[in-house]
């Protein structure tokens, strides 16, 4: 018998507004109304400014490690814009733009990186999960959240974000397999930024696209220019339609680039060429929207100056709110371990300043030795 083909496929790539501001009218017209595009642009600029301020806060000792989002603003922003406000956003840690678009106050992100869990106490009605620090684990949570929506007969879906490095993790594959085989409406949104700290993408995936990983799970998949918000919105709408109508998951590989270091604790000059970074700077998602808006008469230098002033004020106000929050009580970390604190844990809490854990003070002769507070700011 002749050998036949068992399966073939192609991976589509979507690009609507390219780095030279060439615009595909056929795919792009009507995709984002002008007024919305202006607002998206403004949000991206505020997010970029927050990156710059956060960097300085870290360098001046006012904040811990911070991962800059620079260069990747169009990905999560486009997704958050294209989704319903009651769809779950399940981020990694480079999705500030999308979270802010959804309505997460900027100071919550700042608080998180200032070492304060109150930054993760996200109001339920925002349908945002907190930043996920380990790599790839949140995709399973997104799958569970979307599964719960399906269980209840809701049309809600979950969109989870992760990088190219995360596609090497076992949890990525387990989440993809669960969602595909159990018909769970999750959008798996890969921000392929080519670098997992210092390790290049080819060590994570030797296939020509990350998108084709989804093919093995029987999942619809697409690749797009992640620095083009039009492409992102196009793909996420397509994914959301399938998820809502058919309950099927969808994979999006958004090709983008991390213009900054991995975090403020990293120095990317150690492992990547400046020429590569410079080339990607010309493909900056913010620059191309500004060009597009300017060409269409929707933006000018006066508006740009006003926006710069507003971004500065908004970010400064968020920093002020984050820095002026009352310090947590010394025993704050005991109080959300369980719905009801077990008696022994309450004893540890109540005696942390006065005597050894669990000791009955009546057994000891002598004074209580009080210890000083050590809260760091």
């Amino acid at each position, binding site marked *: 018998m002749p050998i036949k083909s068992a399966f073939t496929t192609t991976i589509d790539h979507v690009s609507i507004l390219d780095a030279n501001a060439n615009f595909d009218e056929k795919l792009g017209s009507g995709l984002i109304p002008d007024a919305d595009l202006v607002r998206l642009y403004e949000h991206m600029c505020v997010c970029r400014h927050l990156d710059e301020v956060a960097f300085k806060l870290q360098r001046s000792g006012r904040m811990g490690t911070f991962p800059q989002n620079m260069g990747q603003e169009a990905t999560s922003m486009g997704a958050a814009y294209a989704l319903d406000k009651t769809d779950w956003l399940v981020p990694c840690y480079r999705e500030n733009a999308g979270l802010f678009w959804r309505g997460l106050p900027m100071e919550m992100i700042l608080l998180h990186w200032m070492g304060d*869990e*109150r930054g*993760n*106490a*996200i*109001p*339920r009605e925002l349908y945002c*999960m*907190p930043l996920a620090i*380990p790599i790839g*684990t949140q*995709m*399973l*949570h*997104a*799958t*569970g*959240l*979307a*599964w*719960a*929506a399906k*269980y209840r007969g809701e049309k809600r879906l*979950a969109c989870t974000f992760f990088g190219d490095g995360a596609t090497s993790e*076992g*949890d990525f594959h*387990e*989440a993809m*397999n*669960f969602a595909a*085989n*159990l018909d769970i409406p999750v959008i798996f949104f890969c921000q392929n930024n080519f670098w997992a700290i210092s390790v290049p993408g080819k060590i994570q995936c030797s296939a020509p696209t990350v998108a084709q990983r989804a093919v093995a799970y029987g999942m619809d998949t697409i690749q797009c220019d992640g620095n083009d918000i039009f492409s992102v919105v196009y793909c996420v709408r397509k994914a959301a339609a399938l998820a809502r109508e058919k309950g099927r998951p969808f994979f999006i590989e958004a090709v983008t680039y991390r213009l900054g270091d991995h975090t403020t604790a990293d120095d990317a000059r150690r492992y990547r060429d400046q020429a590569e970074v410079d080339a990607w700077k010309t493909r900056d998602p913010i620059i191309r929207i500004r060009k597009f808006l300017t060409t269409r008469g929707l933006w000018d230098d006066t508006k740009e100056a006003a926006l710069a002033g507003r971004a500065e004020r908004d970010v400064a106000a968020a920093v002020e709110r984050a820095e002026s929050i009352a310090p947590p009580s010394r025993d704050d*970390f005991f109080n*959300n*371990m*369980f*719905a009801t604190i*077990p*008696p*022994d*844990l309450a004893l540890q809490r109540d005696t942390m300043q006065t005597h050894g854990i*669990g*000791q*009955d003070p009546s*057994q000891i002769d002598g004074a209580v030795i009080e210890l000083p507070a050590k809260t760091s700011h």
Partner: protein
Amino acid sequence: MANLTLVQAINLALIQEMERDERVLILGEDVGLNGGVFRVTEGLHKRFGDKRVVDTPLAESGIIGTSIGLAMAGLRPVPEIQFEGFLGPAYDQICSHAARMRTRTRGAMTVPLTIRIPVGGGIHAPELHSDSPESIYIHQPGLKVVMPSSPYDAKGLLISAIRDPDPVMFFEPKRIYRAFREEVPEDEYTLPLGKARVVCEGNEMTIVSWGASVVQCMHAIERGGRSIELIDLRTLYPFDMDAVEASVKKTGRCVIVHEAPKTCGFGAEIAARIMERCFLYLESPVQRVAGFDTIMPYYKLELDYMPDADRIARAIEETAAY
């Protein structure tokens, strides 16, 4: 009342909680059509359908990770990990996420999740089907850990676990799944998590144990001759130190029995707490009868590894003679 095995008592608890609360669903490997490899979920798939009793892909991290999402969305998932030896792949999701989500979000997100896990040796099973890893999860802050030793306790504790607003590791000692029957009320009832049970009273010595080892302790005590108080902790976190303290202050002597390896086994914590609370009452050192600090042997030697009535009886005599 019905005369039930531990497996039947757990099955009944699952049925009653699923009838009572639409949010309860079961997921895991072979839990659906097959009714679980130990038949704990027998009949549930037929009764509740594949929406509520779900055969998942074979992936433990996936089972627990998706259960965390289900729970955060407000459902009450009861996933099964088929054997305790397969907890390894799920360890990260359990300890890095289920245990931490409430505190990470300062209460904005919670994980009401009950993970059922057959545990322990004594059934002639292959490798990684006979371990006792409970201390690992007791040591992880943010989890509750339960291990019943009787059908009656299993039903009441499981119902409490499912209704608990926080993640619970519910270890089911497979050696006593079908070892004996007990009268179990057919109506639903709960037993509080964190409360020990005094199995038998005595004033000469205290034995503290949990899980299948409780049965071995009873065999040792039944050999007679001494007045021994046996405490079954039932819940390992939070644990009922008050019950242990009251008993040890009365008897002045204590033996702790568990199947898990000795070093950093939960017996070490109980012994340290007895030092904190009962130092001046002790007539002898606290002694432990435990598994050894070895890999659990294949089944030809498993009975030489596990604490049995002989070893416990010897510890009783040594402690009494001190």
